[in-house]
């Protein structure tokens, strides 16, 4: 049963990824300027432009171009960036660790804060804590992230001077050896407390900025699903046999309420990778977001498509993992009782 479900999910994954490739290819062909001209530069002669056009296969039919594109992708070739002249995959690999470090830190803030606020809100339903949490959560969802980042900079860098304004690490420190590309991990491995501290202080502002907004989403979600659980018959039974309230909430209701939350986690992580575009731009964080922003501004289409496909893959794989995790979390799905 489980194998069959997993196989179905895998087939879906392949289908969705193919759709992503078709869609991104289509978008790249909407481009009004001539990509060959873009690569050759404004002063190149007509022959050079023509040569590049032939080299890149732009002289072939759209259908042929598409299949060449798919063939390249299957070999892990995402094309060459027009601005950096490097393979897109290599560029993304260079910038990915910074973004992953930022997104993971933000996710930790969002998950811990979101669960805490959501539980408080549900337990004290309709009290002042609940109302406060609801307003804060809702404001979080409605806050432009780029604006929140500016407020943070104004307060914590400009006025209080607690945290640096941008970058990943103090540039005057001796450089870290690149092991994982995650500065916090690398500095621990290299036994460099100075680098660790510097990386951590640089991470605080961008990660909180990215995390706080998602924290609001999580708090709302936890509140709603915990209230739903607390209204169920088994909770009434536990309460009526005199089980302590904290054991009812933390021992029984919360674990069940977290199941729907798991689905949201994957989606939110993928959303954070995109939200990072804006955050990275403001904090000068050298990640994929800054790279892709640069690419959109210079119409570097191989880079844009490469990034979109990679995010699509991450998104699809996370969804798959979560769907499978779900099968284990919810026994009803496993037995096929509920579709």
């Amino acid at each position, binding site marked *: 049963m489980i194998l069959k479900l997993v196989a179905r999910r895998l087939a879906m994954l392949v289908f*969705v990824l193919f759709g992503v490739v078709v869609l991104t290819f289509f978008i*790249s062909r909407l481009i009004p300027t001539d990509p060959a001209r873009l690569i050759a530069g404004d002063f190149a002669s007509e022959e050079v432009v023509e040569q590049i056009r032939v080299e890149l296969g732009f002289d072939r039919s759209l259908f042929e171009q598409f299949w060449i594109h798919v063939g390249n992708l299957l070999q892990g070739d995402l094309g060459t960036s027009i601005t950096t002249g490097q393979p897109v995959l290599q560029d993304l690999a260079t910038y990915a660790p910074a973004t992953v470090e930022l997104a993971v830190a933000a996710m930790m803030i969002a998950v811990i804060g979101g669960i805490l606020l959501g539980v408080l809100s549900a337990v004290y339903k309709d009290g002042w804590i609940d109302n406060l949490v609801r307003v804060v959560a809702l404001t979080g969802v409605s806050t*432009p*992230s780029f604006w929140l980042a*500016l407020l943070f900079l104004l307060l914590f860098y400009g006025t209080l001077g607690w945290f640096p304004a941008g970058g990943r690490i103090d540039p005057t420190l001796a450089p870290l050896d690149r092991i994982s590309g995650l500065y916090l991990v690398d500095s621990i491995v290299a036994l460099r407390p100075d680098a660790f501290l510097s990386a951590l202080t640089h991470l605080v502002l961008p990660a909180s900025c990215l995390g706080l907004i998602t924290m609001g989403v999580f708090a709302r979600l936890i509140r709603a699903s915990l209230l*739903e659980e607390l209204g169920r018959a088994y909770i009434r039974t536990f309460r009526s046999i005199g089980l302590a309230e904290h054991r009812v909430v933390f021992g029984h209701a919360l674990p069940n309420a977290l199941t729907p939350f798991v689905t949201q986690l994957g989606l939110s992580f993928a959303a954070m990778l*995109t939200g990072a575009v804006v955050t990275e731009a403001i904090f000068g964080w050298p990640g994929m977001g800054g790279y*892709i922003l640069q690419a959109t501004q210079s119409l570097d*289409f191989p880079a844009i498509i490469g990034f979109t496909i990679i995010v*699509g893959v991450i998104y699809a794989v996370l969804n798959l993992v979560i769907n499978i995790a779900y099968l284990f979390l919810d026994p009803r799905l496993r037995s096929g009782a509920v579709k």
Partner: protein
Amino acid sequence: MRIVTGLRRRSRSLGLIFDELAGSPLMRLGAVLVATAIIAALVGPLVAPYDPTAIDLDVRLQAPSMAHWLGTDELGRDLLSRLLHGARISLAIGVSIVALSASVGTLIGAYAGLKGGWLDAAIMRATDVVLSLPGLVMAMAFTAALGPSLFNATLALAFVATPGMVRLARGQALTVRSEAYVEASQLYGAPSRHILLRHIIPNAAPALIVQATLSVGAIILAAAALSFLGLGAQPPTAEWGAMVANGRNYLTIHPAYPIAPGLAILVTATGFNLLGDGLNDALNPRREGRAK
């Protein structure tokens, strides 16, 4: 006679909904915020003290004063006037994108749900593809390809927002389709158009209205982010996201410049989110253990 009772029943349930709405302070706050944004959009440009694009280099980057309540920007343009004009742009973008995606999405989704079969499957797989890509990246790629402009950003966001609406409408259609009265009217030979317009869409309306209201807030934020990144509104348009982007460079010397338009975005989006939330509670009584 039957019609009269039907009407009476509907008006009573509407009355209950209004009671419910009036009882929720957060929802009332949302309504006030949205109303403020709408009024600003309607009369703002009329009462704005200056022309939002009039450059006056003698009064560059002035702090808030009696002459310029919010101060001026780097080209000496009055920030309050730009803010008021921006209300019209942000609201127009938010509402038009949602109207476009909701109407197109509802028709496609409801039709797919009603018809089922390969058409339904094909439409659902297409929405899977679009939904598997993060909206902002898709919108960025689209806008970059079409050329950065407010109109192209609007198109891109509408494209990204539609699949969610399709799914919602389809889900509603699937529920309604199996109701006895719909099956009865199908047996009587009612055409699909009739079932779609008379049964499915009216029944799906509450859920769609809630989703649409919440979407306006999200879309206003997304459009502002695109403009902030330079992919949406182009100078000299007074758009809030673009204003924050410009004001960012003067954050420490003239904090009101980037903060005021951001606050306007926050207030407008909060309004729509509170309103959508309240509507959801009122129209969907099962939520949050209300029926205790």
